[in-house]
């Protein structure tokens, strides 16, 4: 079975990886949900309930991508799960919730490619920014995102249940995101200069 890939422009990163990329589809939950869960929960100390997966996958299937082996039955090798919503700060904010690559397929740029696909999809939908959190000790993940242009915007003390600290990573996609709350950038009326 070859997954349907309409409406998505796919750029195969490297023909040698032997992977095809596909957008998630709610109708194929029976095929994909379990392998996606298995892949993601492998790295988690405490599991997410199925409602967490469905929360993202059913509301934003167009922002979830899978890297599948090109050989049938196309097992999943990597997956990215995200959402896009209006944030209380006033921005239209993309959020990458989960990214996982099977241990046999790491260090091949698959994760980066998935993130790029998601950013493009978010950008096409008018996102102002993309954010995510990652453990401060996860250097592979930090490197991946920082290479794509993400900045560390905050350090979050004991962010995870297991007590580890996180960095919030941030990528602006549109000008004015930093001051959206005020309705765009406005120069101050008067710039004060200290009298000499």
């Amino acid at each position, binding site marked *: 079975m070859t997954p349907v890939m309409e409406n998505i422009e796919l750029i195969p990163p490297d023909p040698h990886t032997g992977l095809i990329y596909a957008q998630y589809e709610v109708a194929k939950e029976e095929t994909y949900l379990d392998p996606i869960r298995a892949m993601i929960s492998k790295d988690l100390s405490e599991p997410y309930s199925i409602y967490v997966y469905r929360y993202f996958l059913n509301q934003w299937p167009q922002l979830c991508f899978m890297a599948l082996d090109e050989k049938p039955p196309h097992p999943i090798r990597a997956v990215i799960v995200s959402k896009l919503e209006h944030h209380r700060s006033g921005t239209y904010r993309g959020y990458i919730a989960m990214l996982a690559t099977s241990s046999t397929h790491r260090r091949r740029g698959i994760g980066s490619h998935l993130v790029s696909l998601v950013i493009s999809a978010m950008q096409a939908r008018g996102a102002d920014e993309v954010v995510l959190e990652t453990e401060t000790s996860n250097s592979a993940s930090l490197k991946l995102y920082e290479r794509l*242009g993400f900045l560390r915007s905050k350090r979050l003390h004991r962010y995870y249940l297991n007590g580890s600290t996180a960095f919030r990573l941030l990528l602006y996609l549109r000008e004015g995101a930093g001051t959206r709350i005020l309705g765009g950038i406005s120069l101050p009326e008067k710039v004060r200069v*200290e009298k000499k």
Partner: protein
Amino acid sequence: MTDPEGLTEETARLNIDNDVTTTVDAAQTAAQQPAPVIVGNKRLWDITRQFREASSSLPTGRLIKDQNFTLFESVGALEIMDPKMDSGFLAPGETLYDTYDVLQELLPEEVIGIMDQIMCYEMAWHQGYPLSQTLFTSHYIDRLLWPEPKSLEDAQFDRQSTSNLAGKPMLRILRAYCIGLIKCCDLVIELILRSHYFEEEDFSTHTYNRDLFRRVELDNILPTLGEASDLVDQLAANENISRQQKDLIQAISDRIFLRRTVLIAFDSILLNKRKPEWSPVSNLVSAILDSHPLGKPVSQAFSQKIQRRLTSTVPPRPVVDLEFDEAMKLMKQLSDDCTAAYDVFQCISEGPEPLRSFLFAFSARKPEPLPYARSCVSEGVLARVELHFVDLFRKDLELLVLPDSVVLDPINWTIEAPLSSTPNPRYEMAQLIDSFTSKALPDFGGYMDFWRALTSNRCRLRRQLTHVILGLDELQREAEDMDSMLETFVDDADSNMEEPLFRWAYHQKLRVMQWIVQLGFELDVYLTDELAGMYWVLVSITRLRINILRTIFSFAEARHQIMSNSNMDGSNPRLKQVQKTIDFCRAQLALCEGTEALAEALYTLYTHLHYLHLLPNVASTEPYYDPTLRYEARMKPFLTLQEGFIMEMFGKWNSVIQPFGDFDRPDEDMSAKADGLCDIVETTARVARTAFSNLKGMGPAKMGAERIEHAWLADVNGHLASTIATQLSVSYLRTAIRKRKIRDVILEIPEPGKRHHGWWILPKISIKSS
């Protein structure tokens, strides 16, 4: 909704497969139903058929999502029959609870083993993990606390048997120890709840409906521990026991004594601000570490399954295991930090600068103080009435901009509102300062928030300061109008500085901005390719601060001169006040000038390293890399401030971070520039070194840092060492350039914790030996 029949709830009963019954609120569906079944005060409708019909029309995978079902709820949701989520799920042959005989008398070595395990869980809890995953896994603690005991006597391992611990001295000792421990937890929670903290992030105060002897006074707990000590003494008095047995008894005695010491210390900070006595802890910790191998672990005395009774909605989570050595290290740290924390009570009465120095130094302690110790500090700062902040705020104004000024003369506040239409200047001044104070104090991000921020964890501190600058920016706007009003009431213009309130707010804002940037370095928030730019920002902020400080300094010096000429001697309190401002400005100027110069050195050095391609410029070739957007993202906390240079840099950021054009295709011959750039680094690092040396020579008093002299000295030495390391790095770089050995340069960027000072990230340069 209440109806005439007194039925308070309307529910529909859903009957699935005749044996599982779920009750759902379905009043609307129920309305179509013929006759409800009445059970107690509930009316029930069977909607099984409708539910089946409705659900059969849905294809698999079609999700019906309630609008109110949020991500938060989905994360909290449980999946039945998943062993990791379903708290009632049992593997074949598994029991719901572990059985453990709490009345089985223990060996002394077992009591030691259990006490030491409890200590591990206690310290894990202090780190921020919940009681359910730590102390509440103990069968003994569980039995003492549930069902809720009506009195201390009621708190028994087994309430059924009456004289259950007779003839079981080890269990009696353990019970006393556990009771002492539980009261410790209670006192810790009480203090933390009063402080500025974030649940789960800093600490977990959840007690799962267990009362931790909140109403039992310490005076009632201590005798229980005393009885345990007596029992131990009796055992030790037996002449027939072996050397080995004596050691075991001593080990138990030490543990009881530690519990008693910690308990009294936790209690005393809550009562009358009595100084907690932590000094015995250090020796006890080493003795306990030594005797730890004597203990025998009793793993069955703890069970993860107790969590099932604590909460029904959260699946059992993994028990937190902390090594005993680590736990004792934390206990020692707690005692050191709490001892240091107590100084806050003195600092607050000494004025804003001593308090600021103290809080900053305390929050910078490494390892970072535990939440309880931070709460002790918080208790000193925040548990005070607002009046103290008013006082603190006036002292803050006095020190920087209004030394010996008529504006802050206490007499002004004693003058009543004039009855005639002619204003009384003194009365008006007091009104104005009050109005300014009320604007500065309570607002979100205001002066009180600033002090609150200084008691939070280091990561929060940086983020909370970004709120504080917004408040200060607003205050700065207000200050301009107030200054012009103030001017009309002050007739003796020479003795008062121009625009004092504006200057105070602006200086405070710049100071906080400077800290935000510096904490960014410390917390590793900036990427390597941002360092040059962020040091440039630091230069810009400190330069503005230096301008204000110099203006204030000149004013205060001139004022001092006039006062001295009018035969005031040095001991005159008015003169002393002005002198204090001079001293403070002088020390701050040295610190700022050193900071400005070293930041400039590093800006130049990092920029140079980029042109030499010695630094990774990780993202510059990526499609999503955009310098302007990056600048906007990085400057977000500052974007809405009325701060010229931040806005001016929009679109010009590239000229700051790439002053000679693209790193790969510079506009100028970079090899011709190399020596000149090294010269700049060397010169500015030397300027910084001189400034920091001057500061060191002045000593801590001028900055109000006498109480934290060691920390202050370590801080200044860290700055100094950073200037020296910068000079060293640039000399290696110059050598490499001259010998054309750039390819052999090894460059390291030290991680946090491996730096001379957290705020200075220095490239370490060496040359590969060929």
